[in-house]
């Protein structure tokens, strides 16, 4: 049950979960006996939308960064928020509580199925989604401006559909924003990264997709008076196609990373560097980067640069003993980094990666005293590389402590204190800085 409830040390996750529970409880309490009566009137409509939400939650979309989104579920839930007239069905004249309870039902059904299948559930994320939709429902059906709710404008034939459309898009946007703010709060707490950075990634990586979800709800509500319940699958279809495109994109990203990783194997198989060193430096480097709040794009380039940081050793005539560059003479380190960067620059479009590799040997002193520009990614690789050279990839607590101490000795001179601090956070707990909620398989 580990993945259903958040850990004890995650107060934000518990707060979000509690607000989700509160929304559901208030919906049930305020709706009271009328819920069942309303359900009896709108049974087909409710059944269709609850099913869509459940299915959408079950088929989450996995982003290249490893984050998950459920665009079909979010769009269906928002559509339910705005629904008024439906061709062939009674007008969905229900209050916000009813909407919240119906959406919660769909979300919980999906959570139940996921739990039964042994998949991660993440109730705090489910709660974030519910609070977001409930906010939109309240804004659309209870909040009044000049004595009119947005829903009231929808069924008023004298109001321009333009105005209604704009109102719906604004409310849907607010609802989604609430969800993203809450879920990024939880995520940043778990990864130990800054909230703002998590929020930026949450909006940034999928911005066009989020925009498409925001308009899908209003689309359904606007088409329903003439197209009936068929408007839901019609409006979801473009989003469904996006699943395929994003899936291919994610798959491509995976193979691209594999190709880069192959380059790190060249020095390993040639006996220049220890097996798995580059992968470990990349893993640790990315986690440190997340703790420091580096953007997704920069993280990816950091990852590639970390995988390739020893590539320059390939043309050494004599391998360095043990391949540990931290023990090599500074000028040799510099030559290796330059050679690696030179090889990487042969490929168009990897210039940033090459820059990171090149600058990885610059001591922090030069940043502080000479004002030299050294990219944060390079400083991170320098620290992660030193840590792995010193521990030899072992996670034995004594070795980790000794390595941390040794790196601390170079603090301010060799290493950026901010990065070293993030290293201490990242090495204190293996879940820090990971997107996936599950622990990685042991190597």
């Amino acid at each position: 049950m580990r993945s259903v409830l958040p850990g004890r040390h995650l107060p934000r996750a518990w707060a979000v979960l509690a607000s989700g529970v509160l929304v559901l409880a208030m919906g049930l309490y305020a709706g009271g006996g009328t819920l069942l009566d309303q359900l009896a009137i709108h049974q087909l409509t409710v059944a269709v939308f609850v099913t869509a939400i459940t299915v959408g939650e079950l088929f989450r979309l996995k982003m290249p960064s490893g984050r998950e989104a459920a665009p079909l579920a979010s769009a269906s839930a928002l559509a339910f928020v705005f629904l008024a007239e439906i061709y062939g069905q009674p007008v969905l004249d229900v209050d916000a509580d009813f909407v919240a309870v119906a959406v919660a039902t769909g979300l919980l059904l999906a959570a139940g199925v996921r739990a039964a299948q042994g998949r991660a559930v993440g109730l705090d994320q489910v709660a974030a989604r519910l609070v977001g939709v409930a906010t939109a429902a309240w804004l659309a059906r209870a909040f009044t401006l000049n004595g009119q709710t947005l829903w009231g404008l929808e069924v008023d034939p004298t109001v321009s559909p333009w105005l209604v459309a704009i109102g719906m898009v604004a409310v849907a946007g607010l609802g989604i924003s609430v969800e993203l703010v809450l879920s990024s709060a939880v995520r940043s707490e778990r990864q130990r990264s800054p909230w703002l950075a998590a929020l930026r990634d949450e909006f940034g990586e999928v911005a066009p997709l989020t925009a498409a979800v925001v308009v899908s709800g209003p689309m359904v509500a606007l088409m329903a008076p003439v197209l009936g319940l068929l408007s839901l699958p019609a409006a979801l279809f473009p989003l469904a196609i996006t699943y395929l495109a994003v899936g291919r994109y994610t798959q491509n990203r995976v193979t691209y990373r594999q190709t880069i990783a192959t380059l790190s194997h060249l020095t390993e198989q040639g006996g220049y560097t220890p097996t798995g060193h580059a992968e470990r430096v990349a893993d640790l480097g990315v986690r440190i980067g997340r703790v420091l709040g580096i953007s997704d794009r920069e993280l990816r380039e950091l990852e590639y640069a970390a995988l390739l940081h020893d590539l320059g050793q390939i043309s050494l005539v004599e391998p360095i003993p043990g391949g540990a560059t931290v023990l090599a003479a500074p000028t040799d380190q510099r030559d290796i980094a330059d050679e690696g960067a030179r090889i990487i620059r042969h490929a168009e479009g990897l210039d940033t990666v090459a820059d990171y590799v090149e600058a990885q040997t610059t001591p922090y002193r030069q940043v502080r005293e000479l004002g030299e520009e050294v990219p944060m990614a390079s400083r991170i690789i320098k620290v992660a590389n030193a840590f792995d050279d010193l521990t030899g990839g072992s996670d034995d607590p004594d070795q980790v402590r000794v390595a941390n101490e040794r790196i601390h000795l170079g603090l301010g001179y060799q290493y950026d204190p901010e990065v070293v601090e993030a290293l201490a956070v990242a090495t204190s707990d293996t879940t820090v800085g990971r997107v996936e909620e599950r622990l990685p398989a042991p190597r």
Partner: protein
Amino acid sequence: MSTEASEPDHPASPRVGRATSVYVGCVAVVGISLTAAAIRVDGLEIDATFWVVLLLAVLAWWFGSVEVDSGRVTLSFTSIVLLAAMALVGPAAAGIVGMLIGPMHEARNPLTVRIFNSGMFATMGVVGGFAYLVAGGDPGNDPVGPWQIVREIGIPVLFADVVQLVVNLVLLAVVVRLAAGMPMRAQVGRLLGTSGPAHLGYGIIAFILVVLWEPAGLGSASVFLILPPLVVAQWAYRQYAEEVKGHERALHVLVAAVEAKAPHLMGHSIRVADLSASMAEQLGLRSQAVADARVAGMLHDLGLTTLPTGLVRSTGVGNSRMRTYPSRGVQLLQGLSFLSGALDAIAHHREAVVPGSRDDLSVAALVVGLADEFDLLTEVGTADGVVLSTQEAVDLLRSTPSGREDLLRALDQALSRRAGVSA
């Protein structure tokens, strides 16, 4: 989405010949005449709807298009705009919109390509527009109720979409046939595979736009609701296209690693890759096999990077201590699923040029082996600087497993093609 012609960036693209120019002219004339005929037969009402559709066309242009399939075909949202024009205004308007969108796309394209696109889109618009009417569509009519809407808008939009896709692919396949000499059937198949599903899928977006616009009474505001799904689709395909490009780059880093290890092989990998692909094409292999031969040619020396630097730089690949490099290369690449088709050729390319070795080698291994050895003999040369002429090299290779008549002929054709491109 629609597929349009675009000029490939690489210099190997064929020049526009006479036949192509004549054909492009014909397509342009057909496009204009059809639009004129449609105005005459069906009439054209230039109202607010017409202007908003035109605005949508400009927006579609503004989003730009995404290149797929190494720049030979680009995807854009033109067909969605055309479908909207057919359903909301009529065939004549669709023809005019098509004529105007054509030249706007990819302004860096040469004039011929833009004229062709203009004629093609106009034809697609008018033919599709009449298909919409034939299938029971009626611009300006507001059906109510799911079945009514599906019958009077859904089915006509779908039918018009299929018809315009067919017009699109046929016109395009002919021009590629004339300009690049690729067989038409293979062309249509390839185009259908890359853009067909997306094309039909996005017909649904046009359907939503029309429903929102007319029966739902939202009018031009529906354009703003439909934009995000359009952008998201475009975004996803753009990311995908970028990623594919990035892939190619990563392979080049592997090549650069080989060259850093063995500076005397500078340029060798890329030449072998091009030669192998060209020979595979001459031998009539399928496109996947051609791509595999190219990658195998590019990475055939990768195993060298795991050998001691001194050894690699001092001796040739024939040295017994170097013999393990093909299998070392395979070992490095084993985990990469997209390279699985190239591994066999990488593993066995050396055997292909050793006289008297096994005779059951795959065509790919023979092709890569021949290209590799030929390039080593005629371009790289031996350690003491001996470089053979083409004829000497071919005579030397005749006694090896890859010295088969058909392979040598393919090599000869590939070489003259290379000479033609660089000339």
